[in-house]
């Protein structure tokens, strides 16, 4: 029996990116929302992401690591094209990561500076990631049109992150902060809608191959649940946000879970569009893959370790379940 190793690795990498976008998405979003919160609220917001952000960011390392080890040719081709936004994103990730630690340990007078850097880093990370998404969707070519489009997707993704961040706070906070988060979420939903819409409309326009994949019969029929389910989820989130908070904190988990599902659907649609290309319309996953014997070695490790990662990530989320209070090293 021969396994389709490049496909398996593309699936693993795709899953890692998706998990990253959801998990780091919410903690980036919390950072993006900083200017709207009071200093006390900021401490609680940080407490709600404190035990998780290290592990969340590690999914990015896994995703980019899989690209690096399983598709070495594509790693070089994509990252040299995205040299500048990647560098900006990395500096932004550095700033927010360390600001997170420093703000808790520095004297009170310095806290404002670190809070600013935490916000700035989170914001710039969202913008550059959205920008790179835009350039990627446009086939990794730098024209003024594409840059314009990428700037838009940058804004949309940043707002989408702030939205999922607000959805996380709705679940992890109570009282005034929760009420505030509900209004933040209501104000941020447009980012998700426009972001998904922009990418969904632009992708088939850029490539006739992708256009045919979606808009030919009978594919259109069996693909139709994807946009329909997305629309239904958006409706559900909107409906819930109008009614929250409910007695006994019912349904406070729903916006976050529904948004995660929405991200997953959008991502599945993108994956379907680009498959089998990893560098859009230029290099397929089969052309970019490393040697089969090396992929086997990695696969064995991945199959042992990824279930473990899932298990203890779940354990960690279970330990720190419930409403976030002040963060303490106890």
């Amino acid at each position: 029996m021969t396994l389709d190793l490049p496909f398996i690795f593309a699936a693993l990498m795709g899953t890692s990116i998706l998990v990253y976008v959801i998990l780091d998405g919410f903690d980036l979003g919390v950072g993006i929302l900083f200017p709207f919160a009071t200093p006390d609220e900021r401490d609680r917001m940080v407490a709600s992401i404190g035990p998780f952000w290290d592990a969340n960011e590690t999914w990015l390392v896994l995703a980019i690591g899989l690209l690096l080890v399983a598709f070495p040719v594509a790693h070089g081709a994509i990252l040299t094209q995205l040299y500048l936004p990647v560098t900006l994103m990395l500096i932004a990730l550095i700033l927010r990561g360390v600001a997170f630690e420093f703000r808790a340990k520095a004297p009170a007078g310095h806290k404002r500076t670190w809070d600013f850097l935490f916000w700035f880093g989170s914001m710039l990370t969202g913008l550059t990631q959205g920008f790179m998404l835009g350039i990627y969707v446009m086939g990794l070519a730098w024209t003024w049109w594409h840059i314009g489009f990428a700037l838009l997707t940058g804004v949309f993704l940043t707002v989408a992150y702030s939205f999922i961040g607000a959805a996380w706070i709705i679940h992890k906070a109570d009282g005034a902060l929760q009420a505030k988060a509900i209004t933040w979420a209501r104000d941020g939903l447009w980012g998700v809608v426009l972001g998904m819409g922009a990418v969904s409309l632009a992708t088939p326009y850029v490539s006739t191959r992708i256009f045919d994949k979606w808009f030919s019969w009978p594919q259109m029929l069996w693909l139709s649940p994807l946009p329909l389910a997305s629309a239904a989820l958006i409706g559900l989130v909107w409906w819930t946000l109008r009614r929250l908070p409910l007695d006994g904190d019912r349904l406070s988990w729903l916006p976050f879970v529904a948004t995660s599902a929405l991200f997953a659907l959008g991502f599945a649609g993108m994956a379907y569009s680009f498959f089998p290309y990893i560098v859009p319309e230029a290099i397929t996953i089969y052309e970019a893959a490393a040697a089969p014997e090396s992929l086997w070695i990695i696969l064995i490790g991945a199959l042992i370790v990824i279930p473990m990662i899932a298990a203890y990530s779940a354990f960690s989320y279970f330990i720190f379940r419930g409403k976030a209070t002040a963060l303490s090293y106890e």
Partner: protein
Amino acid sequence: MDALLLSRIQFGANISFHILFPTITIALGWVLLFFKLRFNATGDRKWMDAYMFWVKVFALSFAMGVVSGITMSFQFGTNWPGFMETVGNVAGPLLAYEVLTAFFLEAAFLGIMLFGASRVKPWVHTLATFLVAFGTTMSAFWIIVLNSWMHTPQGYELRDGVVHATDWMAILFNPSMPYRLVHMLLASGLTVAFLIAGISALRLLMKDKAEGTKSAFRTGILMAAMLIPLQIVAGDMHGLNTLEHQPAKVAAMEGNWETQSNAPLLLFAVPNKETRSNDYEIGIPSLASIILTHDADGVVPGLNDFVAEDGTILHPPVLQVFWSFRVMVGVGMLMLATSWLGAFLLWRRGVDRMPRLYLMGMSGMAFMGWVATLAGWYTTEIGRQPWLVSGVLATADAVSPVAAPMVLSTLIAYLLVYAGLMIAYMWVITYLARKAAKGETLPLDPRQGVAGPDLMPAE
């Protein structure tokens, strides 16, 4: 400057900044486990005080390591695409295992280790501390395997210019790996020992009466005094291994231009690449031969053996390697002197009557482990040039086509960020020490505000 040199400087700056923090977290994880186990065994609160102070330093260092580590994984693609294209079949699985087995172990259990002490059973917290320490060490193992393979590659074959793995055991246990691993783990141990001793000395200078500080000080000094002789032996063995497999590097470390017996150990010299000789040379006759071959008449390879017929230089730049090596050894000797003096003073006078001058000296030594570690890495990595993977891939063939001005601008941005963060990091650690010394509650201190459940030692 061309894109190649700029890319090398940028990668060097990134990895230099990165390695500072794993160097601390690898060994500090085990020291924290030691504090925790002492607390479990004795129930003495002072060990938990030491744990609570140093776990904050750990959290800060870990975060710096994570964010700078993310940068590393992108740099391969942005600046060195030729590396993965050529040796990806070997480097890929090793990097993948590093991320899979280690990174997640650390990152996932770190949350419980840092913030979970009152949320989980005491033994789970001890276990989480162990897993984080184990994870950081495994991380180091995989990276050292890959790095060692780049110095002494084996277990592969070339097909159409691309490396394919043929024997994974040979790749894992390549000739320089055991020496490099031991050398690096000991370097981490020493860095942490001096950091703990130095910061604790600073607190003692500020009249900190806490028992936890004294215990940490004692732990740091004794750890340093025990590790430094081991490190000198391990370093010597690593040097002999390098002589066997990378003679050009040793020739550069010794500043030895002509192959000769009775080679002198140079204490000072300015290697001159134009004249291909040393200026202002001061040496001890025959000592290099004795150190490297254990025989005064032993032959030490010279740099002139590594010049091709057409004049192409096949050995590393001499000045940088020569002086990095001397800085590393010099700091090592300083560590030997200060830690043994400290152990002697502890034995004769006890922690309460340490001379002020000694405590001041030790405070100054707090970050010296970094200096030695960086100098050692510069020796070995610059010593590998002009190769990226010895004999397989030249550094110049792996660099990306990104234009020099672009690389220069990102390099400047990285350097500014790193310089700022370095200052902030060192400042915050000393700030935490100052605050703790005054007995003020630290930010995020578990004892502030409402009394939480008291910590219990694990059974």
